[in-house]
């Protein structure tokens, strides 16, 4: 049985090494600028650390992907083109792109470069995936976290493009690539600036009884003493709706597909992605080690597979709001 590739995040060289050392088949990273969707101060790779990271992974037989998954902004397209040139020059195993214009550039300039369609490209059906293959020869597509397992199966049955799904990490509840919520409070959103809820707009205020999260001055949540917290994104804020104050869109929570691994393997998913380039090497080690063990066990045990309490506990601790969900994968909707 072929197991899906375990694809893990690297926001720094130590995180990349942590992923490789703990059993990632593939790691993904981005450059230090707005050409990728985790454009945070001090995060990501320059030419030197990228080369060191690629050497480290290759020497251990692992693959390296580079994310160039934001949309090129008018007047500045050359920065995105340069990022693609650099990926080709570094010799990464593939680039993860969202912008169709950039795909076109990549195909013309670097026909040998393997292309993956980013989750930010927002392809939710096989027609979109197959169109991208016809036009640009993409080899893999990452599906947004809004499809049920049946819908994922349906896509896989109708395409020969490899399908990658999210396995663990902070939940982004929108059809990725179509969310501008962050713009309302900060003027910046993932597709335009490579970041949702940029840190310079975030303030944590310690009151008498609560910790207040403000985004662009707007109060988006209040955590009671010792209440688990989450990232300050608008989708996971508490809002007053018709006299009730609650998590109107989504709660602070992380996606965790561990319980569904046998089905995911069964329907032929090619790769499972872990979210979190913004997080530390400690997180990358813990998640990678746990999912490696779970994936190997699921491969061995198939339908007899059960999630070990220790794994669940380890991932629970790392989750936003200390909560986990199977997300859309097991929703009854069609």
């Amino acid at each position, binding site marked *: 049985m072929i197991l899906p590739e375990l694809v893990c995040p690297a926001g720094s060289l130590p995180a990349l090494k942590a992923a490789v050392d703990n059993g990632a088949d593939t790691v993904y990273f981005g450059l230090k600028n707005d050409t990728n969707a985790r454009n*945070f101060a001090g995060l990501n790779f320059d030419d030197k650390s990228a080369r060191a990271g690629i050497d480290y992974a290759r020497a251990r037989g692992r693959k390296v992907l580079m994310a160039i998954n934001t949309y090129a902004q008018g007047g500045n397209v050359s920065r995105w083109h340069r990022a693609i040139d650099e990926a080709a020059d570094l010799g990464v195993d593939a680039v993860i792109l969202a912008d169709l214009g950039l795909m076109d550039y990549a195909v013309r300039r670097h026909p040998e470069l393997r292309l993956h369609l980013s989750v930010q490209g927002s392809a939710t059906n096989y027609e979109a995936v197959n169109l991208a293959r016809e036009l640009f020869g993409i080899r893999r597509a990452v599906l947004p976290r809004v499809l049920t397992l049946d819908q994922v199966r349906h896509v896989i049955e109708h395409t020969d493009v490899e399908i990658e799904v999210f396995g663990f990490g902070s939940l982004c509840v929108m059809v990725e690539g179509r969310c501008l919520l962050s713009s309302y409070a900060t003027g910046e959103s993932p597709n335009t600036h490579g970041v949702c809820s940029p840190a310079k707009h975030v303030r944590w205020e310690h009151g008498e009884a609560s910790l207040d999260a403000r985004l662009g001055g707007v109060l988006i949540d209040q955590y009671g003493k010792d209440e688990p917290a989450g990232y300050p994104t608008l989708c996971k804020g508490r809002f007053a709706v018709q006299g009730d104050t609650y998590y109107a869109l989504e709660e602070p929570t992380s996606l965790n597909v561990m319980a569904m691994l046998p089905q995911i393997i069964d329907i032929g998913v090619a790769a499972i992605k872990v979210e979190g380039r913004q997080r530390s090497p400690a997180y990358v080690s813990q998640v990678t080690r746990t999912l490696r063990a779970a994936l190997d066990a699921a491969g061995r045990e198939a339908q007899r597979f059960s999630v070990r309490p220790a794994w669940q506990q380890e991932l629970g601790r790392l989750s936003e709001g*200390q909560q986990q969900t199977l997300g859309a994968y097991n929703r009854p909707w069609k």
Partner: protein
Amino acid sequence: MRVPELTVPTRLARLLGRLPATPPAWLLVTSLNQLVKRGVLPADMELLAERRFEVRLVDAGVSLRFAADSRRFLLDRQPGEPDLRLSANVADFARMMLREEDPDTLFFNRKLSIEGDTELGLIVKNLLDSVDWHETPLARFMAS
């Protein structure tokens, strides 16, 4: 090796709190400058210059204050609010430094608090994450 689940006992903390915080702060500043000089801490000092920091060891009752200019870290003796204050118990700071625990995890679990300039906090966090301890004698203490 894992950092044990310990807090500094209250009596000791009361004692520590009464000692001057300058020597430990001086030690911290000196070590940071050493790491920068040896190229272990890949600090872009321009991002930290003219900013003031406070590390509060909650259970020990000790606050370490320091600042930076465009070349190095310095002691901060000015009164007033720092630009960034990180507070946690000693054991949790140790876990963070030894890479046993991710700062975001500690934050979600309310064991680490960040006050002041959140972006500066992110810069500091990402700076610590990018240190390759493999290259230093500390490597053997790090969690794998």
